[in-house]
């Protein structure tokens, strides 16, 4: 009487375990696939220029050196001077984009979620419409627009462009968040003595914090990594953002691989730090709404 049910109970568990191992293997392969180039980037960045060109490659440099990093971070050298300027340019553009994206997306998403205004469906559709076309299609039209606005060769042109691309998804993501927050919470707050605005700030905003953080990270990374538009809109050397800057000054000099790798590594630092700090919220944002609570 006892043996049969236990048999029934263990068999499905075994097959679930089997799948779990397949899943782990798959994840391990993916990790390998994404991690190896990064590790190679790091290793190359601490080689000397000569060691980096050797074949067969040195798996681990005979004489590891941080010379490339010193060079890049030294404001007195011309390379370091450029690199730091590009870095600040990128930071400025990305942070501006992020702040503006949050400032615009939060109320827009809230309005789409809560208010029933005429043309709401149509407007929301047009917000998403942008995402149905590849970004490059907008390159020329946006360039012409920026020229009309007198924004070519300014960081403003990039911020505006990145918002065009980042906002639709940000609004869409945040709207999902607000849809999942019961109306009754705001209603309760309004009865408890809050104005509509206070109910939003005191009750809804904290609840949507994971969504806002996810939106911010998404906007930041989008702006930080963007290449084509930055390449098209900016010409003056002192305005370049990191992706263009790195590409440009290393192809001008003979290819300095350790320097290039060190610069690439430092470029990925802000993104990695952001992720590590806010990962908790980011994961919650992406899984929120999966389970009804």
């Amino acid at each position, binding site marked *: 009487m006892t043996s049969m049910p236990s048999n029934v109970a263990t068999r499905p568990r075994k097959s679930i375990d089997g799948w779990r191992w397949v899943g782990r293997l798959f994840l391990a392969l993916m990790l390998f696939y994404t991690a190896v180039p990064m590790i190679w980037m790091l290793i190359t960045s601490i080689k000397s220029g000569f060691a980096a060109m050797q074949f067969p490659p040195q798996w681990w440099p005979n004489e590891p050196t941080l010379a490339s990093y010193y060079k890049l971070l030294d404001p007195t050298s011309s390379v370091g001077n450029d690199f730091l300027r590009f870095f600040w340019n990128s930071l400025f553009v990305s942070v501006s984009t992020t702040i503006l994206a949050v400032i615009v997306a939060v109320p827009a998403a809230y309005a789409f979620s809560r208010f029933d205004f005429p043309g709401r469906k149509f407007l929301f559709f047009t917000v998403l419409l942008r995402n149905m076309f590849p970004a490059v299609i907008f390159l020329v039209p946006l360039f012409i627009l920026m020229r009309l606005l007198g924004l070519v060769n300014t960081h403003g042109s990039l911020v505006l462009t990145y918002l065009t691309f980042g906002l639709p998804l940000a609004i869409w993501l945040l709207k999902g968040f607000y849809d999942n927050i019961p109306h009754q*919470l705001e209603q309760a707050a309004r009865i408890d003595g809050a104005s509509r605005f206070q109910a939003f700030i005191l009750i809804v905003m904290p609840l949507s914090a994971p969504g806002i953080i996810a939106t911010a990270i998404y906007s930041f990374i989008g702006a930080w990594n963007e290449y084509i538009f930055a390449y098209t809109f900016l010409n003056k050397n002192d305005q370049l953002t990191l992706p263009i800057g790195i590409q440009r000054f290393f192809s001008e000099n003979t290819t300095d691989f350790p320097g290039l790798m060190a610069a690439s590594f430092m470029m990925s630092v802000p993104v990695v730090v952001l992720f590590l700090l806010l990962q908790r919220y980011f994961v919650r944002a992406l899984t929120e709404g999966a389970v009804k609570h």
Partner: protein
Amino acid sequence: MAHVVLRNLVKTYGPHTAVNNVSLTVNDGEFVALVGPSGCGKTTTLNLVAGLIPITSGDISIGDRVVNDVDPKNRDIAMVFQNYALYPQKTVYKNLAFPLQMRRLPRDEIDRKVKEAARVLDMTHLLERKPRELSGGQQQRVALGRALVRDPAVFLMDEPLSNLDAKLRVQMRSEIKRFHQDLEATIIYVTHDQLEAVTMADKMAVMNGGFLQQYDSPAQVFNHPVNMFVASFIGSPAMSLIPLEASSANGRTVLTGEEGWSIELSPHNARKVERSTTKKVVLGARHSTIKLSTSPVPGAIPAKAYTVEPTGDITFVQALLSGAVVNISVPPTMPVAPDQPIWLEFDQERMHLFDGATEMALEAD
């Protein structure tokens, strides 16, 4: 404290009318229970009074002030929501303190009031928990507590006890009732539970399909339902409603059932039937007003027991008459078995008569 007046209140959602021309007055300090089937507009009515949704037409006054365009926070009301609506990111303590903070009370007074409410609701040990760490019943008590910490003009409660177990519900019922008496609070209380309505409320408002059906004391609603809906909705088991055919000859009025049996009406009841707009009259009788015999009685209606449900101190017998299910209660000592022939007598004093076409109660004068 204040009185609340609804005048011709209407709320439509597109083509659908959720609240239809409702007028009622809740006097200062009165406890009014709003009852009705699911979807009849109870929550919508409460939300209109709270100002959470805009009125389509009509007026609401709280105290002597028309509040149609007043913001919820300025209406001086507290509300318990059907689904609690606790702030998930705040602890129980902060949930209770929030309405007081919004009213800028001093910190020590907030602390005192919160602890007092927690004590009354027996949740002092829960104050540091988040809502998701509470059971449904505990969440409900917090929701109630958040309304009770304040001293508003009107309390609105949307099924505040629906998720408590039977014991806690009885306890909270007396708690709310005492609270009502101590504070002389004006309370509008939505409930599915008739027993709650009958035991707690000064008045009952019965709604159906967005319309207010009857607004009266629980006893009046129970004893003098204005129409067939109220008659069948209030009381458990429901009042039996038997469709019959009325006829008069030689100054005698009789009601005849499908099976051919008939009852002669008392002169008082005969006068009621005269007012009917059709020959079709519906006889309403509560289970306790029908006399059941297991042997033939002159003038009694012959029937057959259909089901027999012993509940302990009362046994319910069901029979079919004129196509309607008739509920009769008998002492558990009476030997009745399914399919056994039985004889039924209706109490002329306590029977209800309804117009078969309008479904309204027939009155003698």
